[in-house]
């Protein structure tokens, strides 16, 4: 089990910088997850990158809690510091009727394809993304495949017998 004391310091620093930035945080199995309001995700990312050398976006993905949940969608940002070897996870919660969040391509260039994939699979719209297109599924695909209410065999015409 990794010692998360260092990671808790980052949470404190975030809180000290702006008290609105941290809605909640979790410590489970040596990993710290910070829940960030979606308005400030870009600011939080830029702060962590410039001030605390979280220079690598190791992963960005979505999660669907199910159509009956509110907030329904999660967008997860896995940050990694190549200097301190720390990992931190940021989480943004989005509701079903307004799945919009600002893009972090302005902070890390690599977020481009990650966000396209999240859009492709979950239908989360990344506002101000330079090129938000489908990346894995065919461009005429109907629906978003990893949503919980997406039927396994798909909609027409993709469900040809």
């Amino acid at each position, binding site marked *: 089990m990794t010692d998360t004391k260092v990671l808790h310091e980052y949470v404190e620093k975030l809180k000290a910088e702006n008290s609105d930035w941290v809605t909640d945080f979790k410590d489970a199995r040596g990993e710290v997850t910070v829940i960030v309001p979606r308005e400030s995700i870009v600011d939080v990312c830029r702060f962590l990158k410039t001030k605390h050398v979280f220079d690598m976006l190791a992963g960005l993905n979505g999660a669907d809690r199910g159509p009956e949940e509110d907030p329904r969608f999660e967008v997860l940002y896995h940050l990694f510091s190549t200097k301190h070897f720390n990992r931190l996870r940021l989480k943004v919660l989005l509701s079903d009727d307004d799945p919009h969040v600002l893009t972090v391509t302005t902070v890390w260039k690599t977020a481009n394809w990650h966000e396209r994939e999240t859009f492709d699979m979950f239908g989360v719209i990344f506002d101000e993304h330079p090129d938000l*297109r489908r990346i894995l599924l065919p461009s005429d695909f*109907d629906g978003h495949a990893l949503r919980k209410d997406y039927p396994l065999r798909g909609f027409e015409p993709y469900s040809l017998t």
Partner: protein
Amino acid sequence: MGLENTLFESLPDVITVKLDAVVNWARKSSLWPATFGLACCAIEMMNTVSARNDLSRFGAETFRASPRQADVMIVSGRVSRKMAPALRRIYDQMPEPKWVISMGACATSGGVFDNYAIVQGVDKIVPVDVYVPGCPPRPEMLIHAIMMLQEKVMNESVRDRRDTYETESRQSIVPGTLPVTMGTESETAAKKITNRPYTIASRHEKRKSS
């Protein structure tokens, strides 16, 4: 005292034979497969040509990366929806005569991948001559399929194997297999997000088998 001597003694200089028989014999003796390895079946397909199984005993060892030089397309593996238009295009680019072997459960019926991403049988996109069951099939099974195909080739007529005209072959692309033009921007995508009912029963879901 070789075979030639015996032949020349027993046979006349000129023999008559059906044109179909000669042409088909030539065709079946040198089937050039187009490589279409898509998944683990491709490993077995490679093994089929390797020293142990030696597909060249049956004249079908010359795998070609160009469809223009190939006679038989061995679809080995699962065909994804996104690969489907490419597969159809490769098939259309192959000159007549051409045949298709659907190798393995996935290419034949979708196999265990009964989902939105995989074409449920390659025969929805291209006409298939021989199906090979198995997951994956052993090299012997593929060799058997090729021998079955050779048998089929022998029973064909040259008249049935003509190149389709270009316009016709262009139109032969099955609707829904080619992707529409790119450019679904976030704007149009946002419109598409509507709360759909939990499941929509499609024709596919009414299928009895599952």
